[in-house]
């Protein structure tokens, strides 16, 4: 607020003050920084900062020969700054209040009901944190990009903007814009810097993501029309009550959009190719944050708005989740390329996420949102470590890149950690989140939950085979001499692993003698956004009269 006062002196405070909405009765204060800094546009900085720095990167003069990492430096410091802002926002986040925080709203196209409306609840905050961590990791993973590095880092930063924009936007029109905007820079990154099969990977990416974008756009437009065509604001549209068939249509469109992005079988074709061919930085970004937007759409738009349709689609989603996890396990078992194995395994957190959505119980939804965070880190860690390992081993075949544990111990252990994260081992964030997903889903989707569990067993077999050949088995004398992780590789993988461990150990935040310190706790922050939505899916109490079967009526549905 003091900054606003200063700006007021210079005559620019008034327009900005108008931009600050009157906080609702239940919303947290807009300022952040514990009264050290009063600042109304945290989210705008987080969203547009990378885009601005992408522009700077694009126009900055060509550096001298000895400064070939200039563009990397710009991208690194941009992501570091964004992460710092997000961390401050995270630490200041009011964990036990409902409503949006850090809200910004400006009219844009009022005649169409389109506003520049940003705001985050618990789910958004946690996904921004994920995006910040993954963005920094992706930049460090791209340490060795020398060819056309300017373009590379411009595209990287633009992808960051798009991802953050989807998460922070509260206007569905803007959500669609940012969602679509992510496609181009990612496609350019894959087309320009991926491996030999880059053209197939790019083509698939464009096709699937294009299909998803079309489905999302159609879903939003139908919802807009059904709500009276007045406003694209999420809060307005979420109050709409379209007829059953229209609701179902909207839910299916949103589900298609989500499933192409997450992805789930049978829309997984792009992920297998992109994660197996793209450079490590792109892999981390795509697996870690860009693909998690699918889960975000599924929770926010499908489960959060279309309650009846969500119930109708739940069994199908459960079946798809089970199919994805089982198929991913089988695919990982049969693949002979290290990066392909990791690409299949990276599908598993997405499958478990969708199981949580299919469960449609309060606990499973909380677990789903937390798994968006943890699963993104796990997928990024396993895909990134496999990519880096293959680079350092100069071999991708499991038979050739063999017995690396003795010669590349850091990378081997980090790959193992990624594998354990995918399996949901204790001490890692995926355990707490997967636990909630399963505990919640067993009540309503027991069959799908058991099938997903079987798929995870298959994944364990695949991981055992991968580690046996690549890490712990006998080295192949015909293979090139491998090298261990460089400092940049260690840092980027360490960031991902460290976040997984931190949230896994203290999901409710660390406390000293009962007093919270520093971290309010990911699970507490997630719960602020899901509690209201999840109450619509709360199981009805069992009647207290004489013993009877479980009630056949479905849980109460909002609004």
């Amino acid at each position, binding site marked *: 607020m003091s900054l606003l006062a200063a700006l007021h002196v210079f005559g620019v405070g008034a327009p900005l003050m108008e931009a600050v909405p009157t906080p609702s009765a239940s919303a947290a204060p807009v300022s952040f920084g514990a009264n050290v800094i009063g600042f109304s546009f945290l989210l705008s900085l987080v969203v547009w900062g990378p885009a601005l720095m992408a522009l700077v990167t694009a126009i900055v003069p060509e550096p001298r020969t000895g400064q070939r990492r200039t563009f990397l430096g710009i991208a690194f410091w941009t992501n570091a700054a964004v992460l710092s802002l997000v961390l401050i926002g995270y630490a200041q986040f009011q964990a036990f209040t409902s409503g949006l925080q850090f809200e910004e709203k400006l009219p844009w196209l009022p005649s169409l009901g389109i506003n520049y409306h940003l705001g985050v609840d618990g789910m958004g905050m946690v996904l921004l944190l994920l995006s910040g961590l993954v963005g920094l990791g992706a930049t460090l993973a791209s340490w060795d990009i020398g060819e056309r590095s300017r373009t590379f880092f411009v595209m990287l930063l633009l992808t960051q903007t798009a991802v953050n924009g989807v998460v922070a936007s509260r206007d569905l029109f803007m959500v669609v814009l940012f969602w679509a905007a992510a496609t181009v820079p990612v496609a350019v990154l894959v087309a320009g810097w991926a491996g030999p099969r880059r053209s197939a990977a790019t083509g698939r990416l464009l096709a699937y993501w294009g299909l998803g974008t079309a489905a999302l756009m159609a879903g939003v437009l139908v919802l807009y029309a059904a709500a009276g065509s007045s406003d694209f604001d999420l809060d307005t549209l979420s109050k709409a009550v379209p007829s059953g068939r229209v609701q179902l249509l909207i839910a299916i469109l949103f589900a298609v959009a989500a499933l192409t992005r997450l992805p789930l079988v049978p829309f997984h074709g792009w992920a297998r190719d992109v994660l197996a061919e793209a450079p490590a930085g792109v892999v981390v970004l795509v697996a870690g944050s860009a693909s998690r937007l699918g889960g975000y759409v599924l929770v926010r738009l499908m489960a959060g708005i279309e309650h009846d349709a969500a119930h109708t689609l739940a069994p199908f989603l459960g079946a798809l989740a089970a199919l994805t996890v089982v198929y991913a396990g089988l695919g990982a078992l049969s693949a002979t390329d290290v990066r392909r194995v990791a690409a299949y395994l990276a599908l598993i957190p997405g499958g478990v996420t969708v199981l949580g959505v299919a469960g449609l119980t309060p606990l499973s939804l909380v677990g789903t949102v937390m798994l968006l965070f943890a699963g993104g880190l796990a997928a990024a860690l396993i895909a990134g470590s496999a990519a880096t390992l293959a680079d350092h081993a100069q071999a991708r075949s499991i038979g050739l890149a063999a017995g690396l544990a003795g010669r590349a111990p850091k990378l081997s252990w980090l790959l193992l950690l990624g594998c354990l994260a995918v399996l949901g081992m204790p001490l890692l964030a995926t355990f707490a989140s997967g636990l909630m997903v399963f505990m919640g889903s067993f009540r309503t989707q027991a069959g799908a939950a058991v099938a997903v569990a079987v798929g995870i067993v298959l994944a364990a077999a695949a991981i055992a085979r991968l580690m046996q050949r690549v*890490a712990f088995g006998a080295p192949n004398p015909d293979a090139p001499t491998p090298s261990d992780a460089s400092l940049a590789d260690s840092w980027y993988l360490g960031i991902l692993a460290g976040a997984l461990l931190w949230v896994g150990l203290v999901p409710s935040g660390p406390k000293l003698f*009962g007093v919270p310190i520093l971290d309010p706790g990911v699970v507490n922050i997630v719960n602020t956004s899901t509690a209201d939505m999840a*109450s619509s899916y709360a*199981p009805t109490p*069992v009647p207290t009269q004489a013993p009877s079967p479980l009630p056949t009526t479905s849980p109460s549905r909002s609004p």
Partner: protein
Amino acid sequence: MDAGEGCALSLVTAVTAMHGPAIALAASTASAASSAASGRRGGFDPGSTLPWAVPLILAAPLVGYVLILGSVRSRRGAATVAMATMVVMLLATLLVGWARVHQSAPYKSSYQWINILVASTGDQRFQGFGVDLGFRIDHLALAALVTVMAIVIASLAWHRVAGRGEQGPVRYHVNTLLFALGAGGVLVSSDLVELVAFWLLTGLGTYLLLGHRWGTEGAGRRGQVALAFPFVGDVALFCGVAILYSRFATLTLDSLFPVLTTTLGVGLKSLTAAAVLIFVAVAVRACIWPFTAWQTATVDAPSASVAMAAGVWPVLAGSLLVRMLPLIGAAGVQAPRIAGYAVGVAAVAGPVLGLAGVELRRSIVLASSGAVALTLLGVLYPPSVTVAFSGLLAVAAARAGMLLAGTSAAGAMRTVDMRATGGGWQRMPASSAALLVSAAVIALGGLGAAMLRPSGPAWIAFGAGLALVALSVFRPYFAVAHGVLRRRRAFEPERVRDVPSSVAFAAFICQAVGAVALVAGFLTGWIGFLGAGGHSVSMGTNVLWLIAPLGGVAIAAAAFGVRKDKSLEMGATLGGLTGALWERAAVLYQRLIGRPGQQVVRGVEEVAVPTAEAGVGRAFSAAGGLAGSAERGLPWIPTVLALAVVLAAAFALVGAGLAR
């Protein structure tokens, strides 16, 4: 809070201040202080140490783990820190035991790990979700803890000398402490999720220990089996706990059991499913037939690792089974029947398989798996719960000791083939004595449970099992300790010496614990102390049950003591047959399941998906071509107008306001 407690609190804070979870455990002192035993006026009151001694059981291995990982680089340093950590853990356990010796109720304390309100409406039971880091220590848990720690300490002591040449000493000790942390956590957990978490951690430690030797194909295969196969049981446990939560909305055992049969809407099907899944987890990790493969396939791993896995897991599995008995009982007749038949068959099949083949360690594992099954069978029946559990502790410790002693002998004789061993009493008396004591304890481990057996067909399993276990477990003893040790190429029998006393002593620790637990199982005071229910054994005609194991020993003596070569050759032939059967099964598995599965995946990935994508692409191209032709052939103004009308109609149809 008095000065003593304040000092204790300061000590805990100082020791664990760096570590988040350790801080959490330390914070439980505040709540635990109120449940400590009432202090005596004057003199040392062990009850006053409970607030820090209990968390120390888990904090010690955690601190040791971080210490070794962060700052120790030498083999000796790692071994010393690991051993010191285990000793601290043991001392803390004994201190807690001293404090609780006269308290029959379990000691409880807990700290919240997750506690959230997930819904504000609906069934009140499901409106919140919480997982606690809790301690629940009764006499049974204390006995199990002491047994587990004795096994780990003995294995570490053995490894310190006999395992000097193993690669990665720092890594080895770090993994051992992870294993110990997980095992301790399983035994003291009060929350089901906490139990599952520690169970999985122990499994991870087991995988890292059994796959410790890097750089060989055999090592890689061992690791593969050690991770993948038992994970089935771990996932079954997780699913069982998830079913329980989904029906009862509670994760604490003490609050779960009273509502098992009184919760409306929950029937026998759910209880049976949960009980069976948890029993599968018990059976897999206890390594009873047909789940023995994950241990028999990893006998080439470092011997101390094999001993720890073989000794500790039966204790953990048995402890879980004892704690889940109310669930199995509440699940009607199906679940106990399934469990009973499964362990009954395992009690016979395991030792029979142990007679096939001549690999020393594999024979010990299979033979003792039958003894483990017998004790688990006893645990399933209320009258013999405590006696059988005591027998299980004896068998577990003796199993670990026998593996250590057997490996010592095999190392000295430069072979694991029992046909080439012998003359143990002349050249290796300490190891031979260790083998004898271990075999005796294993053979008699199920005796107490047999004496209290229920009426019904269970006596068949007990009778046959006791005889077969004795026969099978004494076979390695007779093969190593008796007969002639022959010369082989590059091997001189005269050069065989017994192992250093420290190595022999390590194995004796396990045998001593096993023998004590076996004898104590027949003492009424001990049964009352453990307090898990059931009767103590009364001799009299029950002594006749001794005929079964003694008969087995006699047959073993006749077959492997007197006609050793022929008997072992027959065993080798049988082993070759079973090996051929396994290979055939593996080929069939590949042909019927493995390869078709891979073909399905390849078919989908390389044919179906590209075909579908190509078809969609062609469809879009065709549509594009059609649009292009339309654009060329049709006037654009009417075309645009027609499209606008179509879109408007579509919006109108789906928009609000149109009655449906």
